[in-house]
Each structure stands twice: as C-alpha cells, then as structure tokens.
C-alpha cells in the first residue's frame, strides 16, 4: 500500500480496475460517469489494454461478454438509462456464467430523468434487472476509498463465482474527490486460469460458452445451479458495516452516500442522548438479512433512509419479518436527505412513544 492520493470517485474505480487486472473496457458515454470512460480511454492503452467506445450500451455489454468469454477481466460502466439497455447482456452473462464488472453511477429516473444523484436503481440491481431468474453481485460504496476497494473485490468475486458483479454508486460519490489508498497492481500471470474460456480448441478439446442449454432438462438444471450459487454467496460474501447499534433504540438502514449523512445525524443525536445506530449494507446482493433480523429482536424501530421512494425498505421488512416497526425517510428524482432531516425524523419517531 502506497500513500494516499486525491481522486474523483469515477477515476478511482478506473484505476482500481486496471490494478485488478482489467485490460478490456467497452462503454458508451453518459453523465455522470464519463470520467470513468475517459480514464479507461487514456490509461488502458498505456498498459496494452483495449478501450472501445461502443455504438450503444447494448453493443458495449456484448463486447464485454466477448472479452469475458475469452477469459479476460473486462468491464463497462454507465448510468441508469444505459444500464437498462445493458440488462439484455447482463442476463445473458448470468446465464453463460461469465464474470465481468458493471458500474452504475445512478442518476434520478424514471425515463431519461436527470443527472442528479439518486439510488433509484436498487430494485433493478438487486432483483436481477433483466429477464429470467438470476442475480448479480451488487456492491454499494460509500466513499472514494470504497469505490476503489470494492471494484477490486468485484473482479475477484466475479471470477470466483463466475457471475457479473455491479458497483452501484451515485452522482455524488462518482463526482466528489477524496484521498484514496490504492492497492498495488496485481500480476496478470497470478490470476487463476479459466479453463472454460473460448480461446481455440488448442488441446483438441473445444470450449463452448453458451447462454442457452437448448434442452428443457438442462435449463432446469442451470436454474438450480444458479440458485445454489446464490445460496453459497449469501453464506460467504455478505458485507456490511455495524455502526453504534449495540444499545440503539432505533437502527437506521442506509447504503451508499446517505449512510454518511446518517452517521453525521447519529453523532448529533447521540450528543443529545438519543440511542441511534446504523446498519450499512455494503453488499446489496447478497443482502445482510441476518444482522437486520438479529437487531429486530432488540430495537424499537428501523428507519431506512434512501435516495429513492423506498426500495431497500422491502428487503429490510422481509428481514425484520414483522418483529419491529420499519419507517422510511427519503425521496427519489435527485432529492437529497440531509442529516438534519434524519435527526428530525428520529426525534419524531421516538416522541410518538408507541414502540
């Protein structure tokens, strides 16, 4: 680990990806993630990598599919409307069990929306997103440092489980600058071999990378296999931050940038004697249901704070399973919930006294 440097969130993802061995980037411009596209355009050729600006997000994700099928670490990035187009290729990659990293620096929607920061793609990211019964790994960074660290982890786990992984950020962390400590670049030779990759039938045995098994029985078997894989990652790969929940009466659940507003609110509330804590999911899929379930036995209520109209709250409610009240604060379309809003909401919740 070297010293810290000041970087924009989008650029930190790009540098972390290159250091993680990504040499293939395909993507299409869309704000607010253009810095990442441009970072790869400038820096990939310097390390014998390939950058192609695709004609569309549909083509871009399929180019990633081709590079991933070749056994290479490949990535793309976009923002909400572009990610909608990419769902076609992501579903095909989930089916073909191809690893790749997709970055969504979300903007407010629906439709074209605006480039204002939002978390309105939570459903799309965590529930599959495209057609068919599948999931992808979803990471939610809350700082520029995590943009870098989780990109590195996303490549590692995508390869390990042979599945697409997504970094779900937003316009604030994508655009803001913070000090970041970057990992040393890995040696491409140290990456685990991918014997399934289509690199020519050189050993006399051919490779097939197919997204359709072409018989009814095999398609059922594929669905069962994927399901088993998702159960395994739910056991092994859940990550979350537990912040001051030990004695908390109310636990805030927030991911990404709003988790930082929530922490500031918690610090202020604690100074006034309110017992409030935070559970911050770092992996949105697999979702940290177990810790939420455990906390539900002890707390008076949960408050989910999101930059959308209430999406993660559904997973919180599923985990809580009626054992505690779950309230919501936030809003979509670029509305930013400030620490003072959170403080007021918590005070209001506790003053009701009906927990």
């Amino acid at each position, binding site marked *: 680990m070297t010293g810290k440097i000041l970087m924009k969130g989008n650029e930190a993802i790009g540098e972390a990806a290159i250091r993680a061995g990504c040499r293939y980037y395909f993507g299409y411009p869309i704000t607010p993630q253009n810095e990442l596209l441009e970072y790869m355009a400038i820096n990939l050729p310097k390390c014998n990598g390939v950058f192609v600006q*695709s004609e569309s997000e*549909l083509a871009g994700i399929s180019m990633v599919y*081709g590079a991933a099928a070749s056994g290479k670490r490949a990535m793309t990035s976009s923002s909400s409307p572009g990610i909608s187009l990419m769902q076609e290729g992501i579903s095909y990659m989930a089916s073909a069990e191809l690893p790749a990293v997709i970055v969504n620096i979300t903007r407010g929607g629906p439709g074209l929306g605006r480039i204002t920061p939002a978390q309105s793609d939570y459903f799309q990211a965590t529930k599959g997103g495209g057609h068919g019964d599948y999931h992808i790994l979803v990471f939610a960074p809350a700082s520029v440092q995590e943009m870098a660290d989780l990109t590195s982890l996303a490549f590692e786990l995508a390869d390990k489980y042979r599945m697409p992984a997504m970094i779900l950020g937003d316009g604030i962390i994508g655009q803001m600058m913070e000090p970041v400590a970057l990992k040393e670049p890995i040696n491409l030779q140290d990456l685990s071999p991918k014997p399934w990759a289509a690199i*020519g*039938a050189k050993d006399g045995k051919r490779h097939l*990378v197919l997204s359709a098994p072409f018989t009814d029985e095999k398609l059922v078997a594929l669905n069962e296999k994927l399901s088993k894989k998702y159960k395994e990652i739910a056991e092994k790969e859940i990550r979350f931050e537990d912040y001051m929940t030990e004695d908390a009466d109310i636990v805030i659940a927030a991911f990404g940038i709003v988790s930082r507003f929530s922490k500031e609110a918690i610090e202020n509330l604690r100074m006034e004697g309110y017992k409030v804590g935070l559970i911050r999911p770092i992996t949105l899929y697999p979702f940290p249901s177990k810790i939420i379930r455990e906390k539900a036995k002890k707390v008076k209520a949960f408050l989910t704070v999101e930059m959308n109209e209430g999406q993660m709250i559904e997973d919180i409610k599923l985990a809580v399973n009626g054992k505690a009240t779950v309230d919501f604060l936030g809003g979509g379309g670029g509305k930013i919930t400030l620490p003072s809003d959170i403080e007021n909401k918590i005070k209001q919740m506790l003053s009701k006294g009906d927990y």
Partner: protein
Amino acid sequence: MTLIYKRPEIITDEPFTYCPGCSHGIIHRLVAESIEELGIQEKTIGVSSIGCSVRCWKFLNIDFVQGAHGRGLAVATGIKRAQPDNIVFTYQGDGDLLAIGMGETIHAAARGENITVIFANNAFFGATGGQLAPTTLIGQKTSTYPLGREASIIGKPIKISEMLAPLETTTYIARAALNNPSNIKKAKKYIKNAFQMQVEGEKGFFMVELLCACPSNLKKSPVDSLKWVEENMIPYYPLGEFKTINKGNL
C-alpha cells in the same frame, strides 16, 4: 476404390436439426471445409446468436460463443480484440444481422473489425415461423404480412452487401447463392476468401452473403424452393464479389 469426397472432420456426428432442403447444411459444410483447408480448427472461434443457426455450435466441432440476438458482431468484437491472433467469425441470419443487430453490423464494419461474417439470407425470420425480414422481397407472403410485402407499408428489402461495400473499412464483401452446384462452388470460394484474408492478417471487415432456401416457410418442396431463390432472390440480390482489397489498404 478411392475416396474423393468425404465429410469434413469438424462436422460433428450430431443429427442436423434443420428442415429438409434448408441451406444451413450446405453453409455448415462450406465453412467446415474452409476452416479445415486453412488448418485453423484450433484457432477459430465462432459466434452464433439467434434463429435456426443459433445451434450451429452443435454441428461444427470448434470453439463457439453464443451471444444475444443481434449482438453477434459486438460479442465477436470483444473476442477478436481480446484474442487478435485467433480467427473469429459470426454466423448470422437476416433478422439477426439486419433487423435487431443492424447497429452492431454497421458499426463493426465501420470500425473495420477483423471479423468474418457468414450471413445466411433466406428472406424470412425462419425459426420464429416465417415473419417478414428486412430482406423479404416485394410481394413475398409472410406470416406478419400475409398479403405480401408492400413497399408503401413496410418499405423495401435491404441490400446489405451493397451498403457495406462502399465503406472504406470493409475489405471483402461478396454474395453467392446456394441454388445450384455452380453457385455453391462460388460460395465456397468466397467463404474461403473471407477466412483466408483474416488468416493472412488483412485489415478490415469480411462478409459473405448467401442466398438461402427456407422450404418450410416458403411452403414449397426443396427443389421448388431452390427455383424460387433463382427466380426471385437472385434478380433482386445480384451475385458476385463486391469488394476485394489487397493487403495494405488500411
């Protein structure tokens, strides 16, 4: 007795799933012969995407990657960029290449991707049951335009070879028909050329368009279907090499 003609080794033992009289069998053979004659079985990666030919990996014993409908050339771009020393080709029909995948087709050609395209034009959406394709002829009856294609309603058929040949980034563009032995021999020559240029490191985009018979959707016998190709398709889609550029032009 001397064996003078045999099945190419890379054609698998898998029973064909194509209909009687379908031209895919001929194309598979010509592709297999070309790959074998060039000795590139171990370095060729095929891309299939949608339609009847999505299963062509079953019948050709080489590496295959199956991508999404219309995205064959984007997938192939990712493969060729990642493995520039290998030979990459797509095997696509008219719905795939010219309807859902037209964006990928034009841009792969305009980027001059070093990819060979084997394009089967049968003037139908075959696998889905004979709907109108971008290549359906004027007057031709389809399940979605049962009274026949009318230009005033749905426009005219696309001649992609003529569209791509003028691009400075395309290197080999040819069209053959598979309606008789003489034309099949020409098709073989074109297909081999389109692979050979990639093997020899020519820059640019290589495509062979093949006029095919789809008896099931034409609702004609295999022989009558070939006659239909000759009488209806060839007059609208002229045959020949539209573009052959020698080394060094890109």
